[in-house]
């Protein structure tokens, strides 16, 4: 089968190639998905550039990407939740990475039936960004009337998180650039802050939650805008001690600055490491079918142009998700 593979760490155009590879085989708990669409995310670009080579080393060549939608064409002997012919979507686990291909084998725990009211392309755009947003906002227990600041509202994670928080009845502040203000408003955000002309720190006061999707200074700044006892949840900032232990870093300590900020505000800080989860995708399926959340797609590329799709991703200017149509 045809697959887009990472051949080495380096610049996108030099490190990706279409190769003919063998069709994956299923283990007892896997389903084999005939891929209809895949989506790419910033992490896929970072993997190619080698930014994660110490944390998540890959062997070469490796088929790229994690997000997928398609049809179950084969299943392992221990799979009971899926049948041949089921239309599904997934964020495949690290060890099964490789969705820019004709088939992928995925452990069934990481798979869900796809929402019935959207296309394969739209379904493929959801898993990684949707799971990241859902797992972060579920962790903080976002609820009605909570005030939340979601950074980067026009990104894949931000645009999903805005809709999720609104569906839970929260008041949503979000930041974005001038060009994106209008369409981000349409996602339902109550106050869209144009970071080019406004200082969010003077607008957001006493937030219950800050969802940090940017890292850097933004993580520490979150404590300036949360209320006493508020929560900061990050997907890019420093690890918290509990998460670090999960990764085997038993001696890890939260950076002093963050520790002090937490103490001063009696606040909590949590780093969320998105994990593949079919049940969570099932929750997303329901919310999509009830139109509480809509997929936001920037552009759909054919498989033959998937390297160009990565180049587009690397510009960081996509409004929503970049999808590759395969089947």
């Amino acid at each position, binding site marked *: 089968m045809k697959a887009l593979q990472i051949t080495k760490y380096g610049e996108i155009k030099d490190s990706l190639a279409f190769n003919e590879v063998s069709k994956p085989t299923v283990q007892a708990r896997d389903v084999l998905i005939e891929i*209809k669409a895949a989506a790419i995310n910033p992490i896929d670009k970072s993997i190619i550039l080698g930014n994660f080579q110490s944390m998540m080393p890959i062997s070469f060549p490796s088929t790229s990407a994690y997000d997928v*939608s398609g049809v179950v064409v084969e299943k392992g002997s221990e799979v009971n939740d899926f*049948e041949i*012919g089921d*239309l599904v979507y997934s964020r495949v686990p690290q060890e099964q990475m490789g969705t820019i291909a004709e088939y992928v084998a995925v452990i069934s725990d990481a798979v869900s039936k*796809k929402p*019935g*009211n*959207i*296309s*394969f*392309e739209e*379904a493929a755009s959801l898993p990684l960004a949707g799971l990241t947003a859902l797992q972060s906002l579920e962790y903080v227990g976002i609820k009605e009337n909570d005030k939340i600041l979601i950074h980067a509202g026009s990104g894949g994670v931000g645009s999903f998180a805005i809709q999720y928080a609104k569906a839970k009845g929260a008041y949503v502040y979000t930041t974005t650039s001038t060009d994106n203000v209008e369409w981000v408003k349409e996602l339902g955000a109550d106050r869209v802050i144009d970071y080019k002309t406004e200082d969010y720190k003077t607008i957001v006061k006493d937030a219950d939650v800050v969802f940090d999707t940017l890292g850097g200074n933004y993580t520490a700044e979150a404590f300036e805008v949360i209320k006493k006892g508020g929560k900061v949840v990050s997907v890019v900032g420093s690890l918290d001690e509990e998460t670090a232990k999960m990764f085997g870093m038993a001696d890890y300590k939260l950076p002093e600055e963050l520790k002090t900020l937490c103490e001063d505000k009696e606040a909590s800080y949590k780093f969320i490491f998105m994990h593949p989860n079919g049940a969570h995708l099932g929750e997303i399926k329901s919310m999509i*079918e*009830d*139109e509480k959340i809509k997929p936001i797609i920037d552009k759909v590329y054919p498989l033959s142009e998937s390297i160009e799709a990565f180049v587009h991703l690397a510009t960081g200017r996509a409004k929503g998700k970049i999808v590759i149509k395969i089947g």
Partner: protein
Amino acid sequence: MEELIKKVNSIIDLSKEGEAYFVSIAREKATPKGTILIREGQAVNKVFYVTSGCLRSYCIDKNGKEHTLQFAIKNWWISDYIAIHSDEYATLTVECLTDSSVIEFNAKELNGMLTLFPEYEPFQRNLLERHVLSLNKRILNQLQLTASERYDLFLEQYPDTEQYARNYHIATYLGITQESLSRIRVEKAKK
């Protein structure tokens, strides 16, 4: 089962032997919510008579989106008749939207009634006529009625189904978007 026999006997006079055979080929089943009775792409040899609950048949377009063809509530029959009569694989999926009870028949065995008990034929013909009528009406309604009128008809034809079906099930049955369905509901609520 008794109710179905009564229905049959309200149209024809089925002999005792015919009734016994009819009962012998019927399988009463409890089907929990989410059960798939017919799956697109697979062989079909069954038809279902609904005794309780709500079912739906739908097709999937090439983009992967579902479109509802029919709902079935108490006393309705449901299957993929194209597949059965053309001996092709299913183009429809039939799923239970609620915990339901159905009486399952093997289509060939049910057709066998016609040879073994010719008095059964008018019942079968009546079913077929009603099925054709209902399909023709559905096409005409789609061509002639406004979305709001089609929604009214849906409410009349499938009482309570709105409670069980998701909005996109109903919207695709009516051939409209979910946004349009919400708009129609809001307008009706205002009246």
